[in-house]
Each structure stands twice: as C-alpha cells, then as structure tokens.
C-alpha cells in the first residue's frame, strides 16, 4: 500500500503539534515525548525544516521551535523533499514505464496540490471522509 515515509509522517505530526500551539515555542524533546516520536530522528527532521525556513528557532534553556512560515504556501511534495532530502524530480525520471509512470505523475501532481496547511491546521483537516460515514448500522457505533 502507498504511504508517506516515516520522516514525512513525523514532520506532519510535529507541524500539527506546533500549529495547535499558535506561536508558542516547543523543544524537540517536548514534541518527541508528546507525539511519541523517536527523539534523535525528530531532531534531524526539525533541523531540516528549520534549514528550509519552515520552522524558526529560539536558542537557550527555554528555546525550541515554532512555525516560521505560512503553511498554506508549502505543498506536501515540497515538505517530503525537505525531510527526505531527495530529488523527487529525479526519482520521477527513474526507469518507470507505462502504468507505473502514469501513476507516479498523478501522485506527484496530487502531492503538489495538497498544502501542508490542509493536513495539519485545525479546521482544515477532513476528520471523517465521506466513505467513513456509517450508513444503516444497527449496532451502536460509539464506544469510548
């Protein structure tokens, strides 16, 4: 099954965490602990995001990261390139033929059209996709 890389997933989770805190500074350790992400890997990811200007940093004992860019201006594809540090354009030119190449083009286009804000900002995300709406189930669906 197609899925995002672990790095891209962790980058989105971290940005979601920071977006909820609206400008408050959070350390890598705080994010790692709250989101249950391996700290060492997260530090590398946050460093990449900082280098690309997605995060701004505050030094010092109470330092950390906060979002330094309007998340509407970055696409999912750009975010993946930042954290995976690969030239996805080059991977598109790899020896893919026929259906696989057509699929690759479509996926790239989709990832260019989805902004990071669509995925992480509260009120922008789709919480229950249309196909997940239960229809005509007799059993009580809600259990906490």
């Amino acid at each position, binding site marked *: 099954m197609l899925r995002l890389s672990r790095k891209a997933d962790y980058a989105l989770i971290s940005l979601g965490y920071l977006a909820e805190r609206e400008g408050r500074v959070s350390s890598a350790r705080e994010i790692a602990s709250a*989101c249950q992400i391996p700290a060492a890997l997260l530090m590398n990811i946050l460093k990449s995001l900082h280098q690309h200007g997605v995060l701004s940093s505050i030094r010092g004992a109470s330092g950390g990261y906060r979002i330094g860019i309007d998340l509407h201006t970055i696409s999912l594809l750009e975010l993946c390139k930042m954290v995976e540090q690969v030239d996805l354009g080059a991977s598109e030119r790899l020896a893919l033929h026929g259906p696989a190449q057509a699929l690759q083009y479509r996926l790239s286009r989709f990832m260019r059209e989805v902004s990071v804000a669509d995925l992480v900002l509260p009120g922008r995300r789709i919480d229950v996709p249309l196909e997940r709406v239960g229809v005509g189930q007799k059993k*009580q669906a809600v259990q906490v």
Partner: protein
Amino acid sequence: MVNLTETAANEIKKIIQDQGLPADQTRLRVGVKGGGCSGFSYMLDLTEEPAGETDEQLESHGINILVDEKSARYLTGVEIDFKDEVMGRGFVFKNPNATSTCGCGSSFSA
C-alpha cells in the same frame, strides 16, 4: 451542543436520499471512539435506531442528532462542516475542547 453547518446538513440529507433511508426516521449519531495516536477519533453514523436512554437528542438544520453520554463530554460546542476539496470530501469537526490533535488529523485529545 453539536451543530451542523448548513453545508454539512445538506450533505447528510443527500446521503440519506442516495441511500434510500427513511428521512423522518434516520438520525445522525455523532460520537468519539478511543484509538488513534492522540487519543480519540470522530465518528458519524446514520441510523434508524431510536435514541437510547443515555443519548442526548438534538436537531440542527433539520437533521436529528444523537450523542451518547460518554461522547457528549468531548463534543460540547463542536461544529461540523463539510468540505469538498483536493484533499477529498468529508466532514470537518471544529472542536473547542480539543487541546491537541495528531498530524494525521484523525484523532485528538481533550
């Protein structure tokens, strides 16, 4: 307590019609369930079952809504909207109680 936007209500009415459900007996059960990396996930379910003893009954833009007692504490003040965009089509919960959400957007903690 739980409100639908007009767009969300119209989409629910459309699903009821498309699925051939009886409009006057169909209720929208809104709830949360445990799970997900951040705690809870939202659920929407169209049901012909009558309200249970512990269900709260509400109405928003002509849609009858059921919320069970346990879910109600997490859903106070929630507004449900509908979006149709490149990310897909679906319902968006605006929850003033959620203190954090996970990156995947499918769960929250309160």
